[in-house]
């Protein structure tokens, strides 16, 4: 499973958990990775295309209810000094961030990354799942 950085503010302004600094959008060529989102009984599944990003250069952050995905691209097998003779795509990093609804149980977000595709499972908090409420009736006065 891919590590997820969780950051939460501390009252004493002390060191932030994992992650380090607040993420800024990277400089240079940046793409918004396309993604699919579908619902399951447990919550949402998000799949994003981030080809050319190695697992160690992928960062998934959850900060309160903001989810941020940042992938640093490197085409590792391109030989040094190779001359570009035809170009359809320019390598660029991937960045996307969005607000998760309160329904999402951010503590239980899980991430998987393989073949350049990031798969995030966003479970719904138990209270957000529909549940039947018993209606008690009292006898009319």
């Amino acid at each position: 499973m891919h590590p997820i950085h969780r950051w939460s503010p501390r009252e004493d302004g002390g060191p932030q958990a994992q992650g380090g600094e607040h993420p800024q959008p990277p400089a240079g060529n940046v793409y918004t990775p396309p993604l699919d989102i579908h619902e399951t009984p447990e919550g949402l599944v998000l799949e994003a295309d981030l080809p050319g990003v190695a697992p160690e250069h992928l960062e998934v952050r959850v900060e309160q209810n903001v989810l941020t995905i940042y992938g640093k691209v490197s085409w590792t097998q391109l030989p040094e000094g190779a001359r570009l003779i035809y170009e359809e795509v320019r390598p660029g990093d991937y960045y996307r961030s969005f607000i998760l609804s309160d329904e999402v149980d951010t503590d239980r977000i899980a991430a998987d990354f393989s073949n350049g595709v990031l798969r995030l499972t966003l479970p719904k908090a138990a209270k957000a799942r529909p549940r039947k409420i018993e209606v008690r009736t009292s006898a009319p006065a």
Partner: protein
Amino acid sequence: MNIWTWRPGWDPLGELQRQVDRLFDFTQDVSRQFYQTWRQFPAFNLYEAPSEYMLIAPMPGIRPEDLDVSVVGGTLTIKGERRRAAGVPEEAYRRMERWQGKWSRTLQMPENADNDRLSATLDNGVLYLRVPKAPEGQPRQVQVKTGSN
């Protein structure tokens, strides 16, 4: 089906790309996603190194068994199919931005490409295809003899 042929100085798609770049702001612009659907999947770049050619094509989610690479005569074809996860009904999707479907790209290899020694690697969702140059393609010095007198 488009066949791209290597010809020095010929860059039709690059010119179109530059024109479209001027219409859109490409950094962090969501409208670029809609432009991307115009393009073929996968996009690829071609490089030349001293002893080989290399094709690089990002193709996220493609595994070796989903990919078909073949060379017939001097024509290289890469093709496959990209499918969404099985077992998920279409109605369950809230957002579908990733392209899916059957795809195929064709390319005319240069004369001095030794296609029999083609090798391909998939790494983090990117295809790296290498074709060494045939030895005869390397420049060799020719001795120019002078005639007597």
